């Protein structure tokens, strides 16, 4: 495999993990615009453990992910009291705050960045991304996922049917944060370098775009969205300087034609019916 292709596929793997981190709370109707902050927590925490304590990345990355998840619970409980645009603003600010904290934290290199000793190969990154996809597919087959959909569709009715609306929202938010932290930890160990500037607003916003574009109704949406946003700009390389304009036009066109995202429940139903009827 060429170095170029490997590089693109590694980026795809990171984008897929990030997309699912945003998708989980979104499946419960919550927008997390601060996902980059949770990636930073996972990245810095795991890098710190491998660098300073000589931990292996196999334990450091899951622990960084767990820490990001724990922060998700602690931060999610107060932040998820807000709704709509206020939640978007709160999570947006949250991402900024986390990133700014690491930028000023000299123990992890501050603005100069933080080199990481242990190395995660592309194969490890791909396997991890595949693991995240499998985990998401599993979750989507459970009652937990059904509860998230119920909360998103009609929180009042879900509550009256006994679903803990806040509990589900916090769980989805924290689980998303843990996935983000996992991706962040791998990122730090694959590129052997972390800098706070990487985990900026654009990263959060783009990840939300992947998910909205792919569609939030089914578990396949984030995968398709991340793949589209990663691969299409590469395919458009031939058009050189026009590729960003062409790509943006693509997005606007698709969002106009499919406002619910590329992959929707009705599309999946259509596929399933085709499969049973020969």
């Amino acid at each position, binding site marked *: 495999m060429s170095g170029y292709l490997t590089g693109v596929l590694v980026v795809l793997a990171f984008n897929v993990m990030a997309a699912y981190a945003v998708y989980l709370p979104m499946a419960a109707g919550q927008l997390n615009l601060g996902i980059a902050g949770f990636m930073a927590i996972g990245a810095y925490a795991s890098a710190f453990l491998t660098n300073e304590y000589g931990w292996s990345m196999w334990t450091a990355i899951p622990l960084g992910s767990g820490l990001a998840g724990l922060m998700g619970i602690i931060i999610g409980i107060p932040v998820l009291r807000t709704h709509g645009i206020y939640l978007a603003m709160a999570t947006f600010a949250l991402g900024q705050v986390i990133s700014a904290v690491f930028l000023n934290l000299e123990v992890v290199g501050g603005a100069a960045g933080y080199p990481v000793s242990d190395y995660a190969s592309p194969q490890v990154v791909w396997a991890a991304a595949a693991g995240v996809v499998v985990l998401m597919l599993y979750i989507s087959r459970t009652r*937990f996922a059904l509860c998230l*959909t119920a909360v998103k*569709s009609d929180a009042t009715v879900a509550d009256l049917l*006994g679903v803990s609306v806040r509990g589900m929202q916090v769980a989805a938010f924290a689980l998303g944060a843990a996935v983000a932290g996992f991706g962040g930890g791998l990122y730090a160990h694959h590129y052997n370098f972390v800098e706070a500037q990487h985990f900026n607003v654009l990263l959060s916003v783009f990840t939300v775009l992947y998910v909205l574009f792919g569609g939030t109704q089914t578990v396949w949406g984030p995968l398709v969205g991340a793949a589209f946003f990663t691969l299409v700009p590469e395919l458009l390389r031939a058009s050189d300087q026009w590729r960003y304009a062409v790509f943006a036009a693509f997005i606007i066109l698709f969002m106009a034609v499919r406002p619910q995202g590329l992959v929707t*429940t009705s599309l999946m139903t259509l596929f399933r019916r085709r499969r049973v009827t020969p």
Partner: protein
Amino acid sequence: MSAALSISGLSKSFAGVRAIRDLSFEVPKGRTTALIGPNGAGKTTVFNMVSGVYGVDAGRITVNGTDVTHMPSRRRISTGVARSFQNIRLMSHLSVLENLLVGQHVRASSLAALLTPYRLIPNHRWKREARAALAESGLEAYADETVGALPYGVRKRIDLVRATLAGASVLMLDEPAAGLNPSETNALRDHLRALAAKGVTLLVVEHDMHFVDSICENVVVLNFGEKIAEGPLSVVRRDPKVREAYIGTDGED
């Protein structure tokens, strides 16, 4: 006869306007009772207070002997009370079966239940139970349909099945017959009678007096948030206060 639902001294104001004043009545276990009154009498407000969507200013609500007055709305379903909404509140982009599975939540909310990949297990007992409930109501053909695409009358009845699957012994129905055509109304009537025959207590808000007459043993009449009459419909409809409340609307005859 013991009461399935008991309301005493209930009051509620919105921005200084008294919506419910010192309201007391009981719904006997296993009976079908109607809550009637002109528009704005406070019928839906009573439902909202019993289900916990609104808090109460004063008074007490008990369901099957449990005081639910200050219980969080989420927990009330476990005392056996469920409700429907005037405008159907089903999750329209989910399938009928999935909507019913949400209805079972109160009986399947442990961590193990939440993490069971029931969708991967063919004929999982939750799905079996939901299909059986549908079949009992003659709705099995709709199991895999998306709710949003179904006729209004069918959706109203799926809403009922969902409440039954929650294990509700007291069902509050907000205008179940509104907007139904005659054959859908008949199907609904049969459905409600079947539920009543199983011992489910029903409290129905309804404007269609023929429908009320055909299923309810007792009616409670509200006007401006106060109870003005209570008893069998045939008696209540002759009450001068009730006739006065309905003047101009002619909802009685």
